């Protein structure tokens, strides 16, 4: 066990799975980047350096830089999966899903079902999402709920290094297509992460903090906003229970309802939009299945219904924060 960053944890998960299983390959733009140099272990490894060092161990036949065509390498990854490999396709920014949407949602997602369950597409798509770097609405969106809409896709949204490693190993071993959504603000986050491989099952929420007054559902980087707010609120005498579902598909609705049963109050904080997003989905589940448990209306804390601005002051205003969450919790406590 050692302190590792989110970046290192992800790199280690890929490395260990590629060692364990020779059918695992990695492909995408700039994932090798620098192959063939004397010190190729230092190769670029993508814009966040997440895949650095992999090409020196596994070679250019298993860590493949691709032409800049998301649709083509997503399609190729599906084809390679159908040929018996376990590809990990690296989509540099989740926003670029726009160019390969059909391959993901109409092909990968439906293959098993449409062909009578006779074949599988064990594909993992690693991608990066989230605001905070001032790179605006074509590079910062949290689009994971869109993929959660599609039956046949699994969607993983890790909030820290420990979860990232275990969930990524589960994703790679999974026989269904999985989208693994990394948050770009978390790459430097450090946590104790076991050296050996381990898995975390999908659809099991993580209870981050227990408390009897309010349930807060948060995923990805919003977990850390929730933790800060809960510490602050505890000083005011309000005890929050924080739940990180970790995967939006499958979604652990049972744990959410279980917690709401204890608290009777629900606040959802999420970086995806206010409409048709994660927060709306969780609210709908609880409204439908747990209405009688509620002592107060559910509150969603999300960004406004606008594209993500670039100016630092506007972007900070866009991202849901501790102050907004505290206001929401206080409000839900009023009734």
């Amino acid at each position, binding site marked *: 066990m050692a302190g590792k960053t989110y970046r290192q944890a992800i790199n280690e998960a890929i490395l260990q799975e590629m060692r364990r299983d020779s059918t695992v390959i990695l492909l995408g*733009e*700039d994932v090798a980047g*620098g192959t063939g*140099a004397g010190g190729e272990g230092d190769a670029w490894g993508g814009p966040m350096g997440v895949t650095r060092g992999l090409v020196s161990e596994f070679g250019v036949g298993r860590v493949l830089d691709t032409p800049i065509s998301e649709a083509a390498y997503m399609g190729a990854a599906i084809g390679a999966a159908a040929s018996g490999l376990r590809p990990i396709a690296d989509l540099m920014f989740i926003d670029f899903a726009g160019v390969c949407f059909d391959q993901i949602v109409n092909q990968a997602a439906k293959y098993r079902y449409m062909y009578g369950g006779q074949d599988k597409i064990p594909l993992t798509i690693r991608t990066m999402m989230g605001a905070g770097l001032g790179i605006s609405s074509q590079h910062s969106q949290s689009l994971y709920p869109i993929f959660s809409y599609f039956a046949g896709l699994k969607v993983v949204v890790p909030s820290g290094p420990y979860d990232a490693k275990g969930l990524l190993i589960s994703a790679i071993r999974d026989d269904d297509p999985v989208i693994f959504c990394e948050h770009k603000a978390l790459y430097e986050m450090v946590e104790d992460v076991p050296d050996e491989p381990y898995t975390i099952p999908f659809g099991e929420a993580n209870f981050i903090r227990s408390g009897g007054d309010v349930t807060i559902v948060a995923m990805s980087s919003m977990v850390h906003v929730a933790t800060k707010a809960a510490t602050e609120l505890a000083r005011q005498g309000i005890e929050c229970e924080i739940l990180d579902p970790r995967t939006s598909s499958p979604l652990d609705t049972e744990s959410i309802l279980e917690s709401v049963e204890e608290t009777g109050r629900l606040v959802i904080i999420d970086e995806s939009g206010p409409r048709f997003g994660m927060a709306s989905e969780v609210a709908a589940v609880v409204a439908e299945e747990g209405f009688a448990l509620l002592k107060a209306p559910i509150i969603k804390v999300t960004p*406004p219904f*606008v594209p993500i601005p670039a100016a630092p002051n*506007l972007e900070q205003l866009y991202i849901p924060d501790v102050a907004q969450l505290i*206001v929401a919790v206080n409000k839900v406590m009023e009734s």
Partner: protein
Amino acid sequence: MTQKPYLHIPRPTARPGEVPDFSYLKLSDAGAVDRPPVTEKAKNIEYLSHQLVRVLDEQHEAKGPWDPSLDEAALVKALRYMVLTRAYDDRMQRVQRQGKISFYIQSLGEEAISIGQGLALAPDDMLFPSYRNQGLYILRGTRLVDMMCQCLSNTGDMCKGRQMPIMYQNRDKNIFSISGNLATQFPQAVGWAMGSAIKGEKHIAASWVGDGSTSEADFHYALTFAAVYQPPVILNVVNNQWAISTFQGFAGGERRPFAARGVGLGIPGIRVDGNDLLAVYAVTCWAAERARNGHGPTLIEHVTYRGGAHSTSDDPSRYRPKDEWAAFPLGDPMDRLIQHLIKLGHWSDENQTALEQETKTIVDDAWKEAVSFGTMSEPPFLDAQLMFEDVFKEMPDHLKRQRDELLALTGDTP
């Protein structure tokens, strides 16, 4: 003899620590390539996609049928804009290093393309640039201070704080906005040109992508549409040898020149020395004349070299030799134009020093003015209201409520 299938993984000719090797570049001598009439059928001019149109020779003299015979004033004007573009880039690169802007992309070594082409096109022609075409904005009269304000996302920002640095726009000067997603402007430029033809106008459209971006589907879709409808459009591939960390071989450059991508569709492709302002200008005039006179689209490949990092987010020493640019056989476009002007007796080292001093002052003054509109850390800051406007023509009620709630929380009154 039979052989098992294998995977060909392109490998650049030189990696960090190795000796740069550009032997793969097929060069033609200055003046050696024929200049066909603009009415010539695509099938008769396929050679243009394999040879390299060059005007300036090793002795810095203009040679051959593509020599546009620009006069002194035009040449000096081109040089001024190249120097200004480079000075602007240099300043912005440095202020990014100082943390004053979050991101920047230089066009170092590629200035002749934006400037040469911008000069060859008419002001009413519509431009769909890539992020490395800042020279087009500068040439069309976008004020440096406005461009700096965009990079600062401050109160003078033409995009009102909504676009990342370098994604300028200038609607008044017929330059489309820049997209963060590669190659998306290519089909849009074709569509704009179709619109011009539908309306019976003489305006043409031009767009630019990099070598790496030719892999995107949009590039191929655009070529198909251009081949089918024959609209007045110039489609440019700026082959600067590198995408981010992958070289042009990863876009298929090992097989055929990018200019030849049009040939299979019946679109004339023409390969030009992108570091030779005269050649770039001449080829663009040829393509523009074709387009304007109903002879359809042209694909131009500009052979050049990315002199700096891809952006301020990568370190090229990790993936290519440090001295690769110095070894690039087509040299530095600015130096080549200076040498040509000196050869003609129109320019001197003193003129150059004075010009660089003058542009430095222009850039200094622009920066001083730009920061007076605010920086990332210094007020004035953009009005928070702005985040909510222009999403739709009319703001929906639920957005108004979110705006009011958020602004109440921050103490900014709506």
